[in-house]
């Protein structure tokens, strides 16, 4: 197992925070320095998606598309045909929300390394409400052959993930959040596409988190430990390809699994884990996320609390799951 270095202030009240999109902005600028053929396209949301950092450094490699998400990804497909590595950005509700077919045909079936960056995903978008709180993007992207799906846990990891997808030669989806979230990883923490990381060891349950929900699971695990429940926390920033070995080896040990995501659990990250366990290691599973409903307006933290997406709200759910569910396949 790769040792994963967590920041030491993660449970303090003044834990360092930053939106994952900020890490993307820095990562894209670095990717631009590393590869002459990285180009960036935006649909009228250049600062919101943090592409302005790239635009300032490489104005000749930045292309303003306007509010036209179908054109955004199809122009990118053409640029890829001309040998470029195109990063496209918008809000996730619009890209990949509006332009799924164009992504399917011109990026994935066409096997072009178009990078889809969907910012402002999840209910934590806040007061803008359900139209802008994208919850179905993980499902939409993970069903596409050839597509890589990455949901970074914090801004530090987002910066690494951006550089990684710039170099992977494949169509890729990067899911980002609008709000500041705690930074739990460090510059030294490992990040590789397709790898999951054990952040905390335990034997009673495996808590699998993607994106910023991993931090909430770390908090839940700390709370559970006070009641004598020892949870293993696995961070899964790449949903596709899924790191089956790391997930199965943890679940074999603990015999129970919980997933957490700020998205629809149906066909989302929870869906991906349910498919894996159903086929390879049938194990009791509890999925935390959005259950067949849309979000609504509210303050970001208020909404996370309302929908049970905080460590404080997750801990009793996990506790009840453990109390009512035997450990299957222990020692399998």
């Amino acid at each position, binding site marked *: 197992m790769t040792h994963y270095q967590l920041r030491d202030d993660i449970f303090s009240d003044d834990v360092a925070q930053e939106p994952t999109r900020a890490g993307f902005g820095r990562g894209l600028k670095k990717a631009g320095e590393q590869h002459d053929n990285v180009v960036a396209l935006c649909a009228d949301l250049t600062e919101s998606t943090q592409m302005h950092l790239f635009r300032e450094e490489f104005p000749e490699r930045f292309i303003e598309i306007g509010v036209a998400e*179908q054109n955004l990804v199809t122009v990118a497909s053409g*640029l890829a*045909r001309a040998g470029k590595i*195109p990063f496209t950005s918008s809000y996730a509700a619009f890209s990949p929300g509006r332009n799924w077919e164009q992504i399917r045909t*011109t990026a994935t*079936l066409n096997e072009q390394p178009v990078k889809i960056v969907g910012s402002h995903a999840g209910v934590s978008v806040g007061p803008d409400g359900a139209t802008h709180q994208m919850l179905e993007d993980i499902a939409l992207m993970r069903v596409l052959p050839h597509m890589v799906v990455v949901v970074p846990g914090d801004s530090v990891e987002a910066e690494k993930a951006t550089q990684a997808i710039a170099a992977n030669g494949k169509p890729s989806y990067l899911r980002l959040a609008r709000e500041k979230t705690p930074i739990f990883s460090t510059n030294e923490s490992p990040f590789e596409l397709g790898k999951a990381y054990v952040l905390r060891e335990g034997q009673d349950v495996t808590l699998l988190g993607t994106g910023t929900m991993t931090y909430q699971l770390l908090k839940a695990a700390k709370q559970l430990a006070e009641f004598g429940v020892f949870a293993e926390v696995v961070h899964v920033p790449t949903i596709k390809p899924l790191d089956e070995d790391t997930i199965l080896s943890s679940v074999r040990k603990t015999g129970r699994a919980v997933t957490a995501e700020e998205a629809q659990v149906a066909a989302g990250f929870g869906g991906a884990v349910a498919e894996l366990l159903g086929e390879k290691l049938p194990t009791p599973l509890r999925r935390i996320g959005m259950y067949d409903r849309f979000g609504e307006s509210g303050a970001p933290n208020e909404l996370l609390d309302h929908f049970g997406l905080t460590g404080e709200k997750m801990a009793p759910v996990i506790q009840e799951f453990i109390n009512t569910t035997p450990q299957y396949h222990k020692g399998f």
Partner: protein
Amino acid sequence: MKQQLTWAQLDEKANTIRKDIIKMLEAAGSGHSAGPLGLADIFAALYFDIMNYDPKNPEWEGRDYFFLSNGHTVPVQYAAMAEAGFFDKDELLTLRKLGSRLQGHPERTKLPGLENTSGPLGSGLSQASGVAYALQYLDKQPHRFVYTVMGDGELNEGNIWEAAMFAGKYKLSQLIGFIDRNNIQIDGSTEDVMPLEDLRGKWESFGWHVQEVDGHNIESVIDAASMARAITNKPSVIIAHTIPGKGVDFMEYDYKWHGAPPNHEQAKEALAKLRTLDGKIEAGE
């Protein structure tokens, strides 16, 4: 490397392409007849006069790019590519069959020489625009051009007009679009289904240089492409007026042939007409 063919030879190429389309569709037992036959003269012009490419080295870095936007007309492209030497003609008869490189709608990763994957309508112009942008602004290769063929029914798609705005804004002068203006789509006449006129005015207002040609007059098509290449401050669109099913009289103008192949008897009749030039095509002098 570009072949210099006479008008008569180019007309023969178009006739050969038509015959191959009929043979392919009959063998496939499914597919679209009207659009490909109507485009045969434009594809003869593109593949045997207008475009620079190397069939033995499809990724040649000096080539012009071709993007088929209305992917369902791909039999005409396959027939032109085979005639141009990208692959052996026998392979045409594998169209739409299991394991074939000639998919029912074009897939770039299956067949070298295809630049894109298309079928769902409206995205080819955007992809062509992406390449044209790269050639003009990023790689600065003014001698290379990007051609695309769109259907007229396809212009119902919003994606087309997003691309039209984009190419107009960036004055993508190496981008040359052909519109197959045959006035039919699946549900009937384009002007009944969703009117396109004033089509010229629409493109002009988006900042494009617009020409209209008889899409069955190869000389006119070639001249228009030449004029389009000479326009250096705008993208160009050539509205090519065509007859759906051109060359096979019982298919001409009949929208029922949009999505249907000929059966054996119909194919035999069609080939006889094309062989004897008994159809509407006249060979050049």
